[in-house]
């Protein structure tokens, strides 16, 4: 195999190198790639919004299904533009109040589901040393998150055990992830060496 003659592959390869140049230091090549990515991705995002939101969620329901309920978010969305006019800019609080209310409201039951799931998973379905360690770990970690008690004496000791568990978990999760990250880099190198330069087959 020889070096690629495909124009598009060249673009992808040069942009890849431009990003990697950031590892040395900030430089015009990285800046170019960075600004380009931001510009293109926002343009792409707008197109996706047009396609997925305006057409499928507003236009189609309104025109074909005669679903006038979508006028409400439409109005709320328009209220956001009130910030362009000083004397009515307070109106933009209404959509914000709505989305924050929806977000917090939805999170209450889902937090419960998560809570129940976690407790359920901690129940020892079989008796072994592992289940005991899990029970001790979960409880001591929870004690670390006690805020209204000073971490002194017994509580202090248990919360120290909790910190130990947290540290082991962080170390393990860190070590576990390295492989996946190196894989990503291998993927990019394979692209450069095989698709672009044709050095490896």
């Amino acid at each position, binding site marked *: 195999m020889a070096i690629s003659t495909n124009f598009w592959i060249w673009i992808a390869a040069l942009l890849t190198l431009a990003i990697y140049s950031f590892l040395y230091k900030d430089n015009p090549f990285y800046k170019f790639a960075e600004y380009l*990515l931001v510009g293109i991705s926002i343009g792409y995002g707008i197109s996706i919004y047009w396609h997925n939101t305006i057409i499928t969620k507003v236009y189609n329901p309104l025109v074909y299904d005669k679903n006038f309920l979508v006028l409400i978010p439409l109005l709320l969305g328009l209220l956001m533009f009130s910030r362009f006019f000083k004397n009515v800019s307070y109106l933009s609080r209404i959509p914000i109040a709505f989305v924050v209310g929806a977000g917090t409201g939805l999170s209450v039951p889902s937090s419960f589901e998560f809570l129940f799931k976690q407790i359920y998973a901690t*129940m020892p*379905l079989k008796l072994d040393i592992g289940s005991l360690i899990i029970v001790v770990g979960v409880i001591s970690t929870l004690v670390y998150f006690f805020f209204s008690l000073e971490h002194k004496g017994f509580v202090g000791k248990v919360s120290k055990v909790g910190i130990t568990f947290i540290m082991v978990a962080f170390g393990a999760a860190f070590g576990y*992830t390295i492989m996946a990250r190196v894989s990503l880099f291998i993927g990019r190198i394979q692209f450069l060496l095989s698709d672009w330069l044709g050095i490896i087959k």
Partner: protein
Amino acid sequence: MLKRTLLLILFLILSISLFSENDSLIFLENQFPCEGFYITGRDIPNDGGSGIEINWSFPDSLDNCFLTVLRRDEFGNNSVVATDLLVSSKQVRDVSSDEEPSRVKDGIKYYYTGILSKKIIDENLLNILKEKSYLKNGTYIFNNDTFYVTSETDAVISKASWFNLSRIPVLISLIIIAFVFLYYLNLAKSGKELYIRKINGLDAVEEAVGRSTEMGKPIMYILGIGYVTDIPTIAGLTILSRVSKKVAEYETKILVPSYDPVVMTTAQEVVKEAFTEAGRPDLYNKNDIMYITQDQFGYAAGVDGMMMREKPGAVFLQGLFFAESLILAETGHSIGAIQISGTTETAQLPFFVAACDYTLIGEEMMAASVYLQKEPMMLSSIAAEDLLKVFIMLLIIAGFVISIFAFGFNIGLFKNLFDHLVNALQV
């Protein structure tokens, strides 16, 4: 004699081929061993309506047969619910899916019939069956394939439930928790002093803002890639409010690059309000809270670039972060900024802990806004959370003790108890 036999055979062959050409169904009494196979239908409980579930019971010998389910409504319209289900799957639901919108309507009588076959059902046969208004129970033959038609189910009517009974445990705990919160709120109103323990990263906020100001550098506040509907983002916004108040007091600058436009507008409100409260609305500049892009790595690239060029003295990473967490935190470290991070994404916490000066772990981040503004009403909610923690611990310990008696000592009573406990937890 021979001639006659040959003629007879010829006649038979002809007649069979004639039948198969007509695609006609031949009714046979009971030649398919389907005893014990029957189907039932019922309204799906605890749903929002427009759903019927069809169950069937069967002898093991029919394990590998295929079942096709037909539906007839009270007006005589036929339709196919599902074809070629493996009998061992035991159940199918007649509900609307993403591809096919609601077909079952509430309040209408439906009757279901099952077609049992050893091979996958023929498309032509299916079309013939769909045309028939009623099929007699029994075995049929079609193109040399036998199949069995079950008797029709009783009328099934779907309806919507007003209450999801399976969520009663959640409702009960919600009521208990509401009472705990209200109790502590009242306690706070009556003037009882509530305590909150030291949270490491938060005492450093003042220092971080102060040092940046001294060096004449701005502060950067990164809210991550969540939406306003995500609780970590909301928690990040409440911390932003406290931090920007300090920023206004120190008369320095705060940069908030955003990922989501709604987060950006909300962050603008938050900072403006904080600056006004601090008595410096003149310092507020809406252009400092800017939009970058709604692309995970585009955002990371943009924020990295901004960090390299603006060189903030302090970087806050508070909100919802995914893989970009370390890209941001390492760059922040390389420019020598004090970094205070916090997120609820457990997978990203190790990277924050490694790369930042201070990290708020999970709930610490949610409690941070309370810590930074120690009002009694706020503190009361933290105390309530702690009481709930005690409940949970007791529940876990109880579960463990019960399991020792149940599995260790093999006591039936405790086994039942354990089963009940586990079932109640399955939402």
